[in-house]
């Protein structure tokens, strides 16, 4: 009895060893960087964490295929290093000594990646499944790009400034015109004293007035 038990156990162990080894078919390598993710709050990777990992993978498989046949014992871990990295494989309990196809495992992990990450307080980068690419979340994009809004604000300020300056320029111009026309009107109202048909002011201002009758030759007069 005991011998039979020992025999089955060893067969199972050998079978497991064959199923789970580096680069085995349908096996995946996992790399975990706890210290990078958590720093001082890092926990140590021990057998309990491994148990949790097996549980999470089993959970993922159950959710994906919706059949509750995957047990924790179906998930095999091997080659755990100090890094922390290891290989795992999921066996199929319905068929003897076979592994679940890699594509199924991959799809299951992909679907539940978030849950698995959160269980270990890690992220896609610190809990790496080496052959499984993660779907990156798209960046949050607002409906109107932010830069257009800022641009609109800047442009409004500039246009307001230009309009203000132009209007003040026009107003100054109008005021100057009005003042000059007022001054002209004022001058016209004042009585202009005339002498010989020439206003006195003009005679005062100009240095003299060349009488065309007497000037026959330009050269006889010194230039003004």
């Amino acid at each position: 009895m005991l011998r039979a038990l020992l025999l089955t156990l060893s067969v199972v162990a050998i079978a497991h060893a064959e199923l789970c080894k580096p680069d085995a078919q349908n096996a995946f390598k996992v790399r975990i960087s706890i210290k990078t993710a958590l720093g001082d709050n890092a926990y140590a990777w021990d057998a309990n964490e491994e148990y949790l990992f097996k549980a999470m993978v089993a959970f993922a498989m159950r959710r994906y295929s919706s059949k509750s046949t995957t047990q924790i014992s179906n998930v095999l871990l091997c080659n755990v290093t100090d890094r922390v990295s290891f290989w795992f494989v999921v066996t199929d309990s319905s068929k003897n000594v076979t592994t679940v196809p890699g594509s199924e495992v991959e799809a299951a992990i992909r679907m539940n990646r978030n849950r698995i990450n959160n269980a270990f307080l890690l992220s896609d980068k610190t809990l790496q499944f080496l052959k499984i690419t993660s779907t990156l979340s798209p960046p949050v994009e607002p409906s109107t790009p932010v830069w257009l809004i800022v641009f609109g604000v800047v442009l409004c300020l500039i246009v307001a400034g230009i309009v203000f300056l132009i209007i003040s320029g026009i107003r100054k111009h109008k005021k100057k015109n009005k003042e000059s026309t007022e001054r002209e009107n004022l001058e016209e109202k004042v009585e202009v004293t005339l002498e010989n048909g020439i206003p006195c002011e003009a005679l005062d201002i100009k240095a003299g007035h060349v009488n065309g009758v007497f000037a026959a030759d330009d050269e006889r007069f010194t230039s003004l």
Partner: protein
Amino acid sequence: MDEEVECSILQCSGHLPQYFALPRRQSKASGCQKGWAGTLRCAVESDTATGAFLIPYFIALLFEGIPLLHLELALGQYLRKGSIGAWNTISAYLGGIGVASWMVSVLISLYYNTVLTWVMWYFINSFQEPLPWSVCPLNENRTGFNEECYESTAVNYFWYRKTLNITPDIAESGRLQWWLILCLAACWAIVYLCTIRGIETTGKAIYVTAIFPYLVLTIFLIQGLTLPGATEGLIYLFTPNLSTLKNPRVWLDAATQIFFSLSLGFGGLIAFASYNPTKNDCEKDAVTVAIVNSMTSLYASIPVFSVLGFKATTAYWDCLDRNIINIINEFDLPEESIMRQNYTSWISFLNSSYPEKIAGLKLKSCDLQEFLDQSVSGTGLAFIVFTQAIILMPGSQAWAILFFIMLFSLGLSSMFGNIEGVFTPLLELQIVPKSAPKELLSGIICLISFLIALCFTLGSGSYWIDIFDRYASSVPLLVIAFFEVIGVVYIYKINRFSKDVEWMTGRKLNLYWQITWRFISPLLLLIVFTAFVTLQLQKPPSYTAWNPKYEGFPMKEEKVYPPWVQAICVLLVALPCMCLPLAALFHLVKQKRRSKDPSLVPSEVFSCQGANINFSHPKE
């Protein structure tokens, strides 16, 4: 040129605003030619330690910059005219200098505002969280990052793809980028706003655009010095590597960069100085401006280099960390067994025990000096290197906003000088009727410039801006400056000019000015010009293109300019330079025609042209 309003503003302020406009050219635009950042960029690009670059810079300043600055200021102040009128007064044959200056100002204002457009684009994008140049966008099926972005960096991708949408070749023009057109329109609107009534509004705007950058620089200085790796950057800045002085390119760059830094040869200085009172001490002003400019350069270089040192250190740490992760993953060692400190000992140990595995990992060699030496060409310093550094700082949005506002105001104050250099000669030549309001003229100038500058918003726009920068703003300025000095010293005669300056400042010109004006400056300019031409002719001009399909991507691909582009380069250089002989020829023809037609003579006799202007105290 003097109008009541303008005089009072400038006199009350003690000429401060207009002289603040002078240490401009401080945008970190392309090429080795812009102000303080240009000094540093030059050094970084030519793989020189900046400590050595300061030597040719100061020599150029002493023998080229300050003498020419004094010359232009004295000229403008004495003749009280803009550049075209001033040179026509000196000698009618030299009127071409003013026209050439005008032409250079036009060419430069066209492309310079496009650089401001880029700054504005980055500014309005700095309000997002996270900053758009810090993350790569995802590819179509969301399994990874966009390929072009992944292979180069997110910062490069945002600059080359999202901002410029650059084409792989200058011959391919691509399409007009609508977002750049919007920003360009906004930039020209701002320029219009500030120059709407000429120097009246410009004078007010300069207060803000000149003082604000100093504030931001100080803030960056404090922040920069607290960053890790800042000391490495500063040591790099101040250690002279004298072997680099053997490269003639360094001297050339220093000489041409002085022009841009002090805005010599643009005609803007003469125009600004014509607003000064006649008895102003222009000699003191010239020296003050040059010193303020250089001090600003040095002051600005400290935060810039501390940030660069920080960036280099972070890149070095990243390189080390990546190597460490690779090794840990390969050998399945526990985390944090290899740290940056014991990296070298681990590497040597592993190399001796498992050399094939280490070789298989293809580890990059991480060298801090190499990261410090890394150069970026083109508009790299501001838009690639600095933006990368800003992402690494805490509170990056605020730093980005501050940084780009500072760049924008620096560039804007440069634009004022350019636009003034375009505006004033047009007013002088009375091409527009006096009754037309100034607002209309400046509006028309801004509108025309905007329409022409649209071609810089094409896919190949930044290649064209590099061309304009390299050719339109270097050689013509040398030629103009050379003829300016020759014209004043040998045609107007230096003794006459000395008397004029003495009348203005109240003391005799000392030996330094005499020697530099007579011999050293023209000689230096001639040497620089011939060196430039020789270096250009040695090999066909080439450029580096951003081509995602290139094998060496993300390195830029080296390409030669096609012949039609080379022709345009020559045209850009020739156009301003041709103005000089053409104007002289034009005047000669006019003289000959006048001498043949005697009825036209009397009008010349009573005019003041060609008469001894020492007797008139010109005031217009």
